């Protein structure tokens, strides 16, 4: 399988990437690790006229202590996340979940920012960042802005990024020593989740987010509200699929996904 022809340009900096996006408009796509985009291009589901390669921008590859948050450069690879001592100490949910993405080869190439900007509701890390109440930092021609994770994911493959904006950083609150859970249900080790759950305790509150239960990663909002009001795992998890719109496909019917969501959320809550 060969992608449709395209022009390729490597950006030497974030500023250059922004100006290249401005020049090429909607015909251009940013290329990070390529492990979501290139398979779609090989299937010709995607056929951008121009690829702007930001995958090697060292200025966007870091995991940094930022006070009460950890700041992660958008081009930080999954492998970097799964081996980060800082994340292991401060945000172990993210470190653990990064180690469950795809397989080792995928994690050597795939990036956190690429996964989030791609906005695939079946991907693991968007739900993790949502459960953590993370914040995205985007840079465009007018400067930088921050976007809360709760407003970032708009639809399948659609984020709040403008066509001329680059996702540069992801910030997640530190949650040292607080309980968390992550699980996904799939048929083969390296598969996308049929359904996945990320859950994080934070100062008495709880964040629960679902993978592959709708057009975007979704908060299990009614479950969270029930937990806040003191409901136990069994009662709270019975509400986990409320407000979701799970797809049906070869792996699972919508009703089966709803069942999985309730079961996986119950197990997650039992670990919190």
């Amino acid at each position, binding site marked *: 399988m060969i992608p449709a022809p395209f022009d390729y340009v490597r950006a030497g900096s974030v500023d250059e990437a922004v100006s290249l996006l401005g020049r090429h408009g909607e015909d251009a796509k940013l290329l990070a690790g390529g492990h979501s985009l*290139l398979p779609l*291009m090989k299937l010709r589901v995607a056929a951008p006229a121009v690829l702007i390669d930001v995958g090697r921008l060292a200025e966007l590859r870091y995991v940094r202590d930022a006070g009460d948050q950890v700041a992660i450069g958008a081009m930080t690879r999954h492998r970097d996340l799964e081996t980060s001592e800082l994340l292991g100490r401060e945000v172990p949910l993210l470190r653990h979940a990064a180690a469950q993405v795809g397989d080792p080869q995928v994690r050597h190439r795939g990036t956190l920012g690429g996964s989030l900007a791609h906005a695939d509701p079946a991907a693991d890390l968007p739900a993790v960042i949502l459960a953590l109440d993370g914040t995205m930092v985007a840079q465009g021609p007018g400067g930088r802005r921050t976007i809360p994770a709760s407003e970032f994911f708009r639809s399948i493959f659609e984020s709040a990024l403008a066509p001329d904006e680059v996702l540069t950083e992801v910030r997640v609150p530190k949650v040292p020593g607080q309980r968390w859970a992550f699980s996904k249900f799939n048929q083969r080790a390296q598969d996308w989740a049929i359904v996945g759950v990320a859950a994080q305790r934070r100062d008495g509150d709880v964040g629960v987010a679902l993978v592959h239960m709708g057009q975007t990663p979704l908060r299990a909002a009614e479950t969270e509200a029930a937990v806040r009001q003191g409901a136990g795992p069994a009662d709270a998890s019975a509400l986990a699929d409320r407000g979701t719109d799970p797809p049906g496909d070869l792996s699972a019917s919508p009703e089966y996904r709803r069942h999985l969501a309730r079961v996986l959320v119950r197990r997650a809550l039992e670990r919190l």
Partner: protein
Amino acid sequence: MRISLTVNGVREEAEVEPRLLLVHLLRDRLGLTGTSVGCDSTSCGACTVLLDGESVKSCTVLAVQAEAAEVVTIEGVAADGELSPLQAAFQKHHALQCGYCTPGMIMAATSLLKERPDPTEEDVRRGLEGNLCRCTGYRGIVDAVLEVASEGGAR
């Protein structure tokens, strides 16, 4: 566009279309046909090579992304005509039958042992999740990798 990279220690230059995949550069342009194309969809791992020392699936990397990088393929692991420790252990443990997955399996195992020199059996099985073998049932493969690890690792 023109790219240059190092493949198995040899500096290579090539004029490529941006859409050329790394696996096709290796096989069709450089004649290194040891790297197989299996699923062509980032699943099976048959096309695994090392890119700057890390295992990657070369069906999902553009040749232009490998500009200035160091690539190692299965042709590059045997030194002076002598099998690498992993190659020898695969032979000893009957870790292959048809052999189609073997180059990718060896490259993935090389990368795994670099990252985790003293793996448990579970580490090896998880570390090779990205590589499918339809013949062996993996037993011999896991045994081979564990033996090389216990004897000091891959080169």
